[in-house]
């Protein structure tokens, strides 16, 4: 039954892609796309209800054998028969993910109807969007690393197509290419990790791996190596250090794409993969700590960059990187349920923020630079209200979803004794609050810095865009209550539901300390908001400008994203091109040189041969010719022309023959 979930988007993509582009009207294209997303969401809900009622934790369905069995010699020396089936599984983790993907996906599809209304290649956009949903669902539902990898790269391809959707803009196609190749570097790690698992365990079936690891068939060292390699893949996909540089550039794509791909679904693929292979990760302790640390550092690091960004979408991009850092902190400390919980809530409020930002850009007909915004509160009140709710949710304002999920992560971090991670997390939370409200105040408060062109008045977005925003706003608020912690009287239903798959993890915190922690994080958030209020509203951004002048160097470095992009550009991309130039030079000069050299030598040798030929050999040959001629002139006189001479010669011959005959016989 759950296999239907990915089927609908695939059909939608195929219909739009093959027929839509030519035949369909705009309404028809929109209908197929949204219809497919809606059906898929319905199937997800149905499957979810089915899962709740059924007893066993997971259903596995195999369609057919993808790679037939072939013998592989494993590390332990035994011969394993590796067989990869196209099989899917559906358990609580997959349920949550499918619900998020299809739910948020549906809302974004509806939003896109409005946002892309007057775009020329309407059908192509929606077929890519459906294809993306399909690929993401394959990734989530894949029962072995092979199928997951299909989804993994499929999602990469779709993000390449969608980021580079307006391919006339070179910056867009460059961003798309950058995204794909950075993901490819991550996939390099993923493949090697799979290879190591094949070598170590002889299977890439997730359940099989979990069983083998629990059965102790895996040495700790190999487990850590495999986990880290797979984590490298995760950083590529979920834009963590070191492979995060593609996400900010990915803002070149249409905003709904950023919302779907770079907030709700694709970037969470890495988090999902780590959660899915939690047995492997928790078995190798070091891998877990690496995950947690990377998450924490990325959270803070990205937040600093968000401080100085002026493009509204880039601020949200860096905030995404930072929030995913939080999720990895959750996973890193073993609280997989908390990590996924934050993933879900993040999907709600981050896509809300992106879509709202889209609505702002739509209103200002394409303007993305916050410095030329301001005072929009009056102009587009409804967008402002949902934007505020999103900002509050992400900053962890008590009562909203962000607060619950972020708090649970911080609590688990503290409980697991990794105080550094907890501290970084708390700092990150505060910084999140600060840059979010910086964004709010710069866009919606203060005087209007935008110039209203005649033909394009600042207008509120059409309902088809606003309704999904409001739905998301509601979700952003109530999203947290399904995971209400016991402390606040809730039954933490969400964590218990998830732990059916990801294994039990008790926070082990005395209620008192947990309350204290909660208070600390709330205080930090509120303080940050107030600080942002003081700087950007009261003093109209004066301190920010003073800060920028006074320590110009620091400001520039942060603004330039710590020159990481340039560093990557020079070292990796530049290095590869340099190597390419050297290789090309070698190819043209050395090898072809060698070949043409030998040809040259051959030519010279042949010239010598020709000389020798003319002098010696021809000389000899002509000599023979001349001698022959001389001899023949002597003989010539023999032919007198008289018949009788010839007759005589004949007779002499006969005589000779007879004498011989007589002599011999």
């Amino acid at each position: 039954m759950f296999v239907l979930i990915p089927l609908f988007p695939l059909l939608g993509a195929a219909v739009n892609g093959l027929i839509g582009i030519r035949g369909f009207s705009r309404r028809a294209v929109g209908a197929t796309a949204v219809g497919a997303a809606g059906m898929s969401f319905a199937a997800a809900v149905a499957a979810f209800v089915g899962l709740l009622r059924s007893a066993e934790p997971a259903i596995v369905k195999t369609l057919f054998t993808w790679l037939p069995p072939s013998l592989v010699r494993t590390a332990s020396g035994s011969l394993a028969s590796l067989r990869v089936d196209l099989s899917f599984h559906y358990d609580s983790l997959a349920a949550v993910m499918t619900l998020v993907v299809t739910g948020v996906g549906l809302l974004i599809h509806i939003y896109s109807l409005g946002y892309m209304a007057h775009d020329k290649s309407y059908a192509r956009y929606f077929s890519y969007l459906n294809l993306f949903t399909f690929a993401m669902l394959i990734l989530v539902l894949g029962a072995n690393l092979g199928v997951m990898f299909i989804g993994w790269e499929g999602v990469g391809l779709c993000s390449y197509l969608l980021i580079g959707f307006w391919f006339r803009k070179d910056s867009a196609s460059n961003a798309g290419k950058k995204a794909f190749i950075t993901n490819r570097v991550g996939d390099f790690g993923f493949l090697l990790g799979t290879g190591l698992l094949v070598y170590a365990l002889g299977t890439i079936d997730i359940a099989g791996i979990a069983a083998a690891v629990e059965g102790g068939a895996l040495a700790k060292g190999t487990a850590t190596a495999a986990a880290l390699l797979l984590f490298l893949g995760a950083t590529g996909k979920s834009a963590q250090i070191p492979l995060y540089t593609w996400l900010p550039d990915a803002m070149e794509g249409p905003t709904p794409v950023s919302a779907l791909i770079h907030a709700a679904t694709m970037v969470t693929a890495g988090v999902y993969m780590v959660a899915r292979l939690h047995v492997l990760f928790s078995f190798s302790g070091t891998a877990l700590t690496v995950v947690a640390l990377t998450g924490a550092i990325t959270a803070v690091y990205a937040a600093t960059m968000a401080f100085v960004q002026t493009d509204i979408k880039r601020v949200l991009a860096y905030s995404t990187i930072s929030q995913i850092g939080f999720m990895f902190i959750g996973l890193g400390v073993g609280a997989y349920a908390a990590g996924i919980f934050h993933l879900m809530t993040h999907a709600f409020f981050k896509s809300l923020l992106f879509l709202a930002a889209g609505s702002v850009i739509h209103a200002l007909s394409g303007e993305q630079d916050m410095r030329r915004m301001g005072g929009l509160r009056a102009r587009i009140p409804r967008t402002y209200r949902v934007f505020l709710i999103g900002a509050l949710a992400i900053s962890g304002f008590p009562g909203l979803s962000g607060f619950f999920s972020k708090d649970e992560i911080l609590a688990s971090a503290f409980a697991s004794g990794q105080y550094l991670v907890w501290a970084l997390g708390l700092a990150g939370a505060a910084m999140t609050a600060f840059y979010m409200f910086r964004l709010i105040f710069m866009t919606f408060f203060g005087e209007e810095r935008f110039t209203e062109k005649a033909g394009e008045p600042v207008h509120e977005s059409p309902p088809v865009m606003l309704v999904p925003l409001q739905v998301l706003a509601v979700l952003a608020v109530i999203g947290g209550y399904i995971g209400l912690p016991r402390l606040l009287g809730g039954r933490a239903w969400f964590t218990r539901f998830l732990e059916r798959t990801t294994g039990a993890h008790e926070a082990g915190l005395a209620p008192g300390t947990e309350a204290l922690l909660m208070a600390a994080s709330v205080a930090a958030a509120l303080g940050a908001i107030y600080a942002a209020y003081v700087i950007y509203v009261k003093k109209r951004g004066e301190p920010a400008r003073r800060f920028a002048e006074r320590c110009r160097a620091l400001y520039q470095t942060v603004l330039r994203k710590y020159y990481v992009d340039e560093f990557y550009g020079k070292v990796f991309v530049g290095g590869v091109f340099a190597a390419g130039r050297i290789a090309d030079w070698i190819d043209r000069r050395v090898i072809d040189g060698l070949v043409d050299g030998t040809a040259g030598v051959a030519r010279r040798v042949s010239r010598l041969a020709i000389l020798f030929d003319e002098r010696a050999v021809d000389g000899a040959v002509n000599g023979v010719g001349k001698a022959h001629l001389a001899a023949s002139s002597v003989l010539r006189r023999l032919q007198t022309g008289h018949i009788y001479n010839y007759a005589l010669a004949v007779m002499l011959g006969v005589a000779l023959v007879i004498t011989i005959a007589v002599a011999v016989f």
Partner: protein
Amino acid sequence: MIPIEAVIVLGLLLFAIGFVGVVVRKNLVVMLMSLELLLNGANVILVGLGRRLDSPRGTIFAMFVIIMAVSEAAVGFALVLAYFRQKKSYDVDALDDLKG
């Protein structure tokens, strides 16, 4: 019975005389005639041996030789006439255009 040796000697003699005629005489017509002699010599030997081997082949072969001789003589004379008309002479020595 006639001894075969005699017949062959006769044939040889005729052949030799014919040959000498061809080689010595300068007159074309005489050469042709001696050629006929030569052929007769050959015929005699053929018949002799045919007789000796008691098979009709000898005579048949001789017949064909005669046929050939007839045709050769006819063509020969045609050539001689043509040549005579041109060169007004029968001298064989004049016929040496095919010199080397």
